[in-house]
């Protein structure tokens, strides 16, 4: 049994790492990481705009965004992927690669979830910060840019990392529309071997475990640091339990 694992890894480590890259599209673990990093990089500004729209005083910004967030929270990611897979080529009239479709889906999905985190971060600062910034002569934009968002986003860093983790886990769903990611590479390996599905999928699970576990570890230590900084120098020795941050993430 152990020998099987070693043989599979020896034979297929390159396929699992970068897919068929020089001869075909980039795939495997590298593609999973690139896809999640791009998704989170785009989802971040989108989520800030969505959060601002949800807190806006204008109903024509607030209502559609609230509806979008509720729809995204109430519909499975898989359904959203199928929608994008169907609608994006229809609208653009082009043959869009599944990688891009998955990227757009993830930006919408994680953007909606992150926007809830941003909104909670802004609301938890309290009205006083905005009032004080306005009293000092900032306009709405200036107050947001220089006073509110820097504080809200700093407190959000741990949730950002855990969103990155859940994005990595979400990319596995690209399997349904044949995005060449790690899961796809593993099922390719499985199709070539045919006789050792348990070994192949266990290796897959272990790789994801190592990846997500180490990122979660980083998130937790950053969270502790931020909690300590927020507690101020007098309470610097207090453990993180003193001020647990509310981390809102979607599991998958």
């Amino acid at each position, binding site marked *: 049994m152990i020998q099987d694992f070693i043989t599979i890894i020896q034979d297929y480590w390159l396929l699992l790492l970068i897919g068929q890259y020089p001869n075909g599209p980039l795939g495997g673990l590298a593609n999973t990481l690139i896809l999640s990093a791009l998704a989170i990089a785009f989802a971040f500004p989108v989520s800030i705009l969505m959060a601002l729209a949800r807190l806006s005083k204008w109903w024509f910004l607030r209502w559609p965004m609230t509806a979008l967030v509720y729809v995204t929270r109430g519909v499975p990611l898989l359904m959203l992927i199928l929608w994008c897979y169907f609608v994006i080529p229809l609208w653009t009239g082009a043959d869009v690669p599944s990688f891009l479709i998955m990227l757009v889906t993830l930006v919408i999905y994680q953007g909606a979830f992150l926007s809830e985190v941003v909104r909670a971060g802004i609301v938890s600062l309290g009205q006083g910060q905005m009032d004080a910034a306005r009293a000092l002569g900032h306009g709405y934009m200036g107050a947001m840019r220089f006073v509110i968002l820097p504080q809200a986003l700093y407190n959000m860093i741990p949730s950002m990392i855990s969103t990155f983790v859940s994005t990595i886990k979400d990319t596995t769903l690209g399997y349904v529309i044949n995005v060449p990611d790690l899961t796809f590479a593993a099922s390719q390996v499985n199709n070539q071997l045919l006789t050792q*599905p348990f070994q192949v999928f*266990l290796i897959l*699970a272990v790789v994801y475990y190592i990846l997500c576990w180490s990122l979660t570890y980083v998130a937790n230590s950053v969270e502790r640091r931020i909690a300590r900084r927020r507690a101020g120098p007098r309470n610097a020795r207090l453990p993180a339990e003193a001020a647990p941050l509310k981390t809102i993430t979607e599991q998958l």
Partner: protein
Amino acid sequence: MNGFDLSAILNNPEYISMLLHGIEMTFIIYIGSWTLAMTLAILLLALRVSPLRIGEPIVAAYVSYHRNVPTLVQLMLWYFGIFTLMPQGLSDWLANNNAEAIFAVIGLGLCQAAYFSEDLRSGLRSVSPGQMEAAQALGHGYASAMRFVIMPQGVRNALPPLINHSVSLFKNSSLAIVIGAPELTHAVKEIENISFRTFEVYMIGTVTYLFFSLIIMGIGAYIAMRADPARRARA
């Protein structure tokens, strides 16, 4: 492709029965895995708070595995991997009894148990230790203090994340399509393949998921409201 026409799907009895079967299977998977998850979560929690020293690391490892490995990969490992390792008699029996749905229930349930047990644990941890001391000072034993003082508060604190995760479990039941369980997303894909009315049938599927998710959220909000002591005192 013709114009948007929902009635082409809704007036076709064959499609409707496929959709209803899908919804039924989605609910079987959902309720089955929810029950499995909650039972396991309580067992895990009991193991964790028990004085057995071995309990803590076992539960921690269980939770860590199920939270850090994508649910899809867990399902694949169950259905494509563990299924083939089972003894012949058992796997034959499973194959004759809708193995896809059974493995969806097992995979989703085991995964969700990790989330539920963490929710319950953080709910219990937020009850101050003074409550236990006070209850014991009033003459409660450990069990009765747990039953009447700690648990009601802890479960109430755990309600919001439990509700959130119950909704996610409902949405995650759609992942069962990957191992071929005939649930709602599967039915939607099948009708799409037959009718080519992608837009309409996706719309029906999306609205159905949204409708039931909102209902689960609503039930959760109602339970949370009923559990709120301030509201109960007023009533």
